[in-house]
């Protein structure tokens, strides 16, 4: 059964979609930012560590989708790692609940420099609908310097991929 299906895929071609375009403006802005801070470049492959700072889990569903065979994240040299110590990029979701502030601080500390911090989802941008609650800090910017924001509730896999690839391009540009 399995082999038959795999054989059929060989004939039909992969389910993976062709890579879309990379947002140029974002890439340029990111590259300029990197030049300004004289941050060392990391090359064409980035290890990403996801950090949930109180999301509703909607953002996580779309991060998961990046790993399905349609988006196939790894073909771009991007992959998720299990520890911040292995990461180049922190992909942070959620409005930064106060109960997770210390966990975020410690994760950032555990991530070796140079590192990039991406805020993903409206919650991470400014708290989203949870802005103003006693229990959230209202976006991850309250705790960390953010290199890139990917808004959306949740952003689609295509939007997340565009952001990640812009970072990859900016990082590779010399």
């Amino acid at each position, binding site marked *: *059964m399995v082999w038959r299906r795999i054989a059929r895929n060989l004939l039909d071609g992969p*389910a993976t979609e062709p890579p879309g375009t990379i947002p140029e403006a974002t890439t340029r802005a990111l590259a300029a930012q990197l030049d300004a801070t004289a941050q060392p470049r990391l090359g064409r492959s980035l290890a990403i560590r996801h950090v949930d700072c109180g999301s509703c889990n909607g953002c996580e569903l779309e*991060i998961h989708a990046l790993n*399905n065979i349609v988006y196939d994240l790894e073909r771009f040299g991007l992959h998720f790692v299990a520890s911040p110590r292995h990461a180049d990029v922190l992909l942070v979701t959620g409005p930064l609940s106060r109960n*997770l502030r210390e966990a975020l601080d410690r*994760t950032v500390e555990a991530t070796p420099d140079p590192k990039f911090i991406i805020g993903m989802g409206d919650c991470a941008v400014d708290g989203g609908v949870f802005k103003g609650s006693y229990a959230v800090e209202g976006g991850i910017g309250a705790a960390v310097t953010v290199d890139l924001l990917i808004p959306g509730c949740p952003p689609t896999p295509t939007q997340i991929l565009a952001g990640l690839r812009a970072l990859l391009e900016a990082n590779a540009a010399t």
Partner: protein
Amino acid sequence: MSGLAQNPASTIIRAGAAMDCQPWPRMLLRQEAWTVMAAALAREPGLALIALWADPTDIHALFVDEAAGAVLFASVPVQGGRYPALSPTRPGAAWYERMIADLWGHTAQGGTDGRAWLDHGRWPQVFPLATRPGPAGPAPEPPEFLPTDGQDLHQIPVGPIHAGIIEPGHFRFTAQGETIARLEIRLGYTHKGTLSLMRGKSPRVAARFAARLSGDSTVAHSLAFSHATEAALGVEIPMRAVMLRAVMAELERMANHLGDIGAICNDASFAFAFARFGFLREEILRASSFAFGHRLMMDCVIPGGIAADLAPGGAETIAQALASVEAELPALIRIYGNYASLVDRMATTGVIAPNLTAQFAAGGYVGRAAGRQVDARRFPSYPPYDAFPPTIPVLITSDVDARVRIRLAELTDSARLTQALLGAVAHGPISVTLPMGSGEGIGVAESFRGDAWHFVRLEGGLITANFMRDPSWAQWPLLEAAVEGNIVADFPLVNKSFNGSYSGVDL
């Protein structure tokens, strides 16, 4: 007195003063009657505690007796900051009592666990939902875990930030060699103060928060919240909205089942299934996005109906996605059962003792894999499922394998149901305007995880009190029980087979 003492708890609740709440009255008990009722629960195992919550003056408990076909809703006034605990006779009440103490400051007298739950000592105030919240206490203390005694035990602390792409929580394992002797779960990290944000808002505005209680169940929670609101206001919604809501709910169920079954197989290193199930999930999400404008259908179900009509061609797009699922599913189900190395990881792993699933009133695949024939679409039921009844699969082995097989069976049934629903969608309006009314209501919807219940109190069109009960409340404590005696390396598999929502219970 002796008459009262012998009465089952349900009779005592029924004898309370009926307050207006739709569709089930809220029975107000005096503290003495509540105390007797709490003790009498021991003799009435069929009366399941679904949820326990509070407002600044009262405690509320929601019970279901499936066999008797009854939903019972009881309240008791808080006196001197206290109320009689339910946890001695309903262990599932313990987390609720801790949550109530943290959010409202009411103490459960005689409760089995007095430790803090949602309040980790990081908020600028204490008792945030009380009429007058208090100032924050001193710096947070390290959490207290249950003591463990025994030879050669060691502890493994995991989280709150986990290794995978999942929500945050802390798991404290006590292990003996490879074997888990005890797991204690500490949650509350994702607490966002959602209930406080909903107060003072109109149902339409507050619906955005219900939709974000747990993103994977956004349709189900929007639906339960809408049901509660519509019941409180006595509103009937157009048939077209009823049908399209059900289509969305079934799409959500299928998308989650597909994603999770793939992920469980991946945890057992079966990449083929992960690839195929993930592909089918993506097809469902794309069809949902095309038909309703959002991949997860967030904010698509609103109090009064639905936010936007089905897009032109939407029905055909959904039908195509369903056809892909139905074409491939039988083969995938066969493959799942045929790989001995896969089944070997799943079967007899993470078994829950049968009495516990009943005690905690577990719904969804956790309950159904343990012999409980429960489904909110069947009981208490809501339209259109009275006319389109789901088939409810039940197994009794209560292991990872049974939970997967229940979900496989539900996938097949949801695909069938969705097709039937789509074929019967009526023409007409998709929503009604809500009156600026007052009232109390309870709503329920079956999410992919199980029964989601919402309570709403409206005054002059604005929310003055509410609660949202995700099915995970009943499932997390069972995960603690299910992993006992399993090896640490099987924990991810068992955990994934439950897939409790963190955000859903952290509120």
